[in-house]
């Protein structure tokens, strides 16, 4: 099951309303995914040389009371990374100078229970267990701004209901994927990737798809080529929705077993598992509404 949603705002004047438009999209898919929810939002990128990571403290003893500022002070004194933190309960976005790998390595040693949800220059990630409306409320999704987002409501079928197994999944920098459906060969994909040094955080099938596609992108494929290869490598029933700093991309399995509908206007492209999540969008009555064809790669740029 699960619900997928995404919105790319072509009209820059709407960027301030991304969160407000997004929340009903997410909560509209509650029936398809009542156990967890998450969202990746794309903001204007940081200057080159600076990175941000989205962190989760819900697995620590302190939970939402985690002392993020102490963590960042310690990080700065050890790595001189000029790090800042924006806290949001058990979520925090840490911004710093330099590469991601040394900071992640430092976290593994000094704060091993902190879960790194995403890294990059443009993408912030939020995900947790709970009904979509609760998760949206918990992290103030309605106040978020940006150019586009990728969201998910989860009805777990293949791995446990935990915050780290909620979607979106991320790999590398500024790449995320959500998925409604199920893969039948995630372990085969994983066994193929792990000897190449690609590390997995969970046993979730979507993570295998996400890391596979990011591996292809890092290896030089453009997104359409990577997705074309994915049709061969990833077996199952799915609609994948992906986000990069300037695009949303979608592909459906050859049998179109899992739903997807798109509404496009001059102002936006909105994607959802079902039209129910799009009905509130401004001007949707006059939008071009269509179902993406199976096996076809769709990429929308902003």
């Amino acid at each position: 099951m699960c619900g997928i949603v995404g919105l790319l705002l072509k009209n820059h004047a709407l960027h301030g309303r991304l969160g407000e438009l997004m929340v009903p999209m997410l909560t509209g898919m509650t029936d398809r995914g009542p156990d967890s929810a998450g969202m990746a939002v794309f903001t204007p990128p940081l200057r080159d040389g600076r990175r941000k990571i989205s962190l989760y403290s819900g697995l620590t003893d302190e939970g939402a009371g985690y002392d993020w500022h102490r963590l960042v002070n310690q990080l700065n004194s050890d790595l001189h990374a000029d790090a800042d933190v924006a806290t949001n309960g058990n979520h925090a976005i840490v911004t710093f100078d330099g590469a991601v790998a040394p900071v992640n390595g430092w976290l593994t040693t000094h704060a091993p229970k902190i879960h790194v949800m995403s890294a990059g220059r443009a993408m912030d990630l939020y995900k947790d267990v709970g009904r979509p409306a609760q998760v949206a409320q918990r992290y103030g999704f309605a106040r978020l701004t940006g150019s586009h987002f990728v969201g998910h409501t989860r009805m777990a079928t293949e791995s446990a209901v935990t915050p780290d197994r909620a979607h979106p999944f991320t790999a590398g920098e500024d790449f995320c994927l959500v998925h409604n459906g199920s893969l039948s060969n995630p372990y085969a994909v994983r066994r193929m990737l792990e000897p190449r040094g690609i590390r997995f955080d969970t046993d979730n099938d979507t993570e295998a798809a996400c890391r596979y596609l990011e591996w292809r992108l890092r290896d030089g494929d453009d997104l359409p080529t990577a997705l074309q290869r994915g049709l061969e490598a990833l077996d199952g029933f799915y609609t994948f929705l992906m986000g990069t700093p300037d695009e949303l991309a979608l592909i459906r399995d050859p049998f179109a077993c899992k739903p997807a509908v798109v509404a496009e206007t001059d102002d936006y492209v909105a994607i959802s598992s079902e039209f129910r999540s799009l009905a509130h969008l401004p001007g949707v009555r006059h939008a071009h509404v269509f179902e993406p064809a199976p096996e076809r790669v769709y990429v929308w740029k902003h």
Partner: protein
Amino acid sequence: METLSFDLTRDTVRQLNQRLHAPAAELAGREVRIFNPDGAHNIAVGLNAPVRVTVHGHAGYYAAGMNQLATVLIEGSASTGVAENMMSGTVRVKGFASNAAGASAHGGLLVVDGDAGLRCGISLKGGDIVVGGSVGSFSGFMAQAGRIVICGDAGSALGDSLYEAVIYVKGDIASLGADAQIEPLGECDVAVVQELLGAAGLSHDARAFKRVASARSLYHWNAEAEQEY
């Protein structure tokens, strides 16, 4: 006669359907208008009265499923399973229809003005379907009786494992399914296509259609085929 109006931003689908499940004599001849359907599931399911229902917008899953006697017009698109298991009456979708449109319909007429998704008319049991646009792969899979008229193209594996339903296609067929074959278009076929196009209010040259029907080679078990079909 008084028009019944429902606004699904205010009324629930359950309230709507319970009202539409009133005795047929009470509903007969009524106009029913449904506003702001906004993709809700199960709109006007299980009707059993000669009413006219107009859905002003996009319908969700199983719209007008199990229809009997009613005439249902969906002005937008319809999601999975529109008019599935219809017994009689007419269902028309002005936009596109998603997967499994008209699945298992025993009777009645489903018209889709736009495209229909995959598995259109799967397991059709006697209903008629007219699609103004194209249909996706696996359409007419295991269709047992009834007629499907496709004015556009058909996707892969059209009519796989067909029984006695007949499919007419004007455009290109990506591929035929197991045991489906193209047969000569007879005068009876032309009359059928004309009749169905007329009922659907669509204008096409009936002689431009191809007839797809079962080769009937799967009707009997053939041990010598060694599972190769």
